[in-house]
């Protein structure tokens, strides 16, 4: 038995890292981004779809479809005071884009990495020959597929239930609005998902700050001047064509921003948030049990 030696350099075995793999893989490089992201996506998707979180989201995102059914039954018996298309506009603009989709993004996207850290399974992902950014990409894709699979069918059902109350005539003229709304919903999930992914890798407990962001900070969208431009919702709201009339302060100050500006701003936010999340995740140590 000898005491620990003084600092010295020992010739490292040069063969392993540069040697070709016997199974044909290039072991000198990480697995390609797409292949790794796909593997992470496959691993994450099932767990995400069958999680308890998804049950809550089915209720949250599917709720309007049931409500529309009730509304449809009611409207056939009563003289219409609120038009069906107006009600559909309320569902899309106020319910989905302003509340339900951002909440879905908050609960899924903040958990993309946090769940693995809390469950202490992150070690398995970080001890594979893959770039960390592909872990984030695969998980983000799984989040998008899960939430879109819940939200888009619900809005399609809502659209047809509400807008065919008086028959199918004229439906063709408003179907483009449905596609536009679906586009805005996709953008909503992507941009809030990117933002909350960033919060998820940045903060240990991101849910409360996330709720404050959604329901306090985002109220700035109704403020005068340039303040709405510091929110996400102002851009998304402006992209919806048939929003119902605003009330209260929003009626006085609410601005409709130019479509091109909205698309550019949302696109830039997505890139910045995702790049920030990827950079932080790739630098960060996930020390377990310390």
């Amino acid at each position: 038995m000898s005491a620990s030696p003084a600092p010295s350099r020992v010739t490292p075995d040069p063969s392993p890292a540069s040697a070709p793999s016997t199974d044909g893989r290039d072991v000198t490089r990480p697995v390609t981004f797409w292949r790794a992201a796909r593997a992470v996506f496959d691993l994450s998707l099932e767990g995400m779809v069958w999680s308890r979180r998804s049950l809550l989201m089915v209720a949250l995102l599917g709720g309007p479809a049931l409500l529309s059914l009730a509304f449809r039954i009611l409207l056939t018996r009563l003289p219409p005071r609120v038009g069906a298309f107006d009600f559909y506009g309320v569902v899309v603009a106020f319910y989905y884009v302003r509340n339900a989709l951002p909440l879905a993004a908050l609960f899924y996207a903040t958990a993309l990495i946090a769940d693995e850290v809390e469950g202490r399974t992150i070690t398995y992902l970080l001890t594979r020959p893959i770039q960390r950014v592909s872990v984030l990409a695969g998980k983000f894709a799984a989040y998008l597929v899960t939430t879109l699979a819940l939200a888009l069918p619900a809005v399609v059902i809502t659209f047809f239930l509400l807008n065919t109350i008086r028959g199918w005539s004229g439906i063709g003229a408003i179907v483009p609005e449905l596609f536009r709304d679906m586009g805005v919903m996709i953008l909503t999930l992507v941009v809030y998902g990117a933002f909350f992914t960033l919060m998820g890798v940045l903060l240990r407990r991101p849910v409360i700050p996330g709720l404050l962001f959604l329901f306090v900070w985002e109220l700035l969208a109704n403020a005068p001047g340039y303040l709405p431009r510091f929110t996400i919702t102002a851009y998304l709201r402006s992209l919806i064509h048939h929003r119902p009339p605003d009330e209260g302060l929003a009626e006085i100050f609410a601005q409709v921003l130019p479509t091109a500006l909205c698309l550019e701003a949302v696109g830039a936010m997505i890139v910045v948030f995702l790049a920030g999340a990827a950079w932080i995740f790739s630098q960060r140590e996930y020390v377990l049990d310390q």
Partner: protein
Amino acid sequence: MTATMEFVRASRWYGPVIALNDVTTTVGPGVTGLLGPNGAGKSTFLKLAAGQLAPSQGEVRVLGKPAWGSPELFHRVGVCPEPDAFWEGLTGLQFLMALLRLTGFDDAECKRRADHALEQVALTEARDRKIGGYSKGMRQRIKMAQSLAHDPQVLLLDEPLSGMDPVNRRRVVDLVKKLGREGRTVLVSSHILHEVEAMTRRVLLIHNGRILAEGDVREIRDLMDEHPHTVALRARDPRALARAVVGSPHVLSLTFGAEGEWVTVQTARPDEFYSSVVDAAVEAGVSEMYSPDENLESVFKYLVAR
């Protein structure tokens, strides 16, 4: 010596706490035990080697590359982490297949390797059961399987025998020895001298974040002789287990745990005790066995004082 792993003046601290302090050492092919009491810095040492942590100071290199920030190393490095954590809804086979896909294999190769790894840890029959339903020993073994399924040259095993029953403990010890004989570099951490000794004679002794000594485990064994070794066993029939072992000349004392399932044995001859307890353990339904580290702690105190 060709080193597959080298620490050069490596330190790691968490805020004001120094977990590893100016460590310089090398590890080569074969099995090396990383031995130290709880909190000695073993896990930090392994996490540095596994690229999970960056050294605060100094260098940690594996296969000639910096361990931190070189993901390609994991084609050649397998890690068996200490936490008992899994995606509980996956079956053993799905778990291995998913991790092999992340290592870049196609589906057919994943399946072949997963089957082989399951066979190596004797879990073939349980491959289609969900990990959530596995026993502690099975969970340890599936964790071991994922670390070696991609045929790595370097294996980092953090307390791989923790909580295993005697039969599977023997099986995993044999597997680790075989991997070492094949020329792989296997670094196994443990706070139990006997566990390490069963796998290798080469050890790194770590205490308070420093490598105290490195060399032949038998020299530590000589120091241990005057210290009784404590073993705790959880059995379906603790009284049958007690009856079977109490007459053994290797047993100094025996006590029953408060919950009625545990038996704690003190022995002066751990080797002989572990050999003699296997049959009795099977009959009495021993499901868990571990050794508290107090006795090792006293040896470390002795070494530090020397």
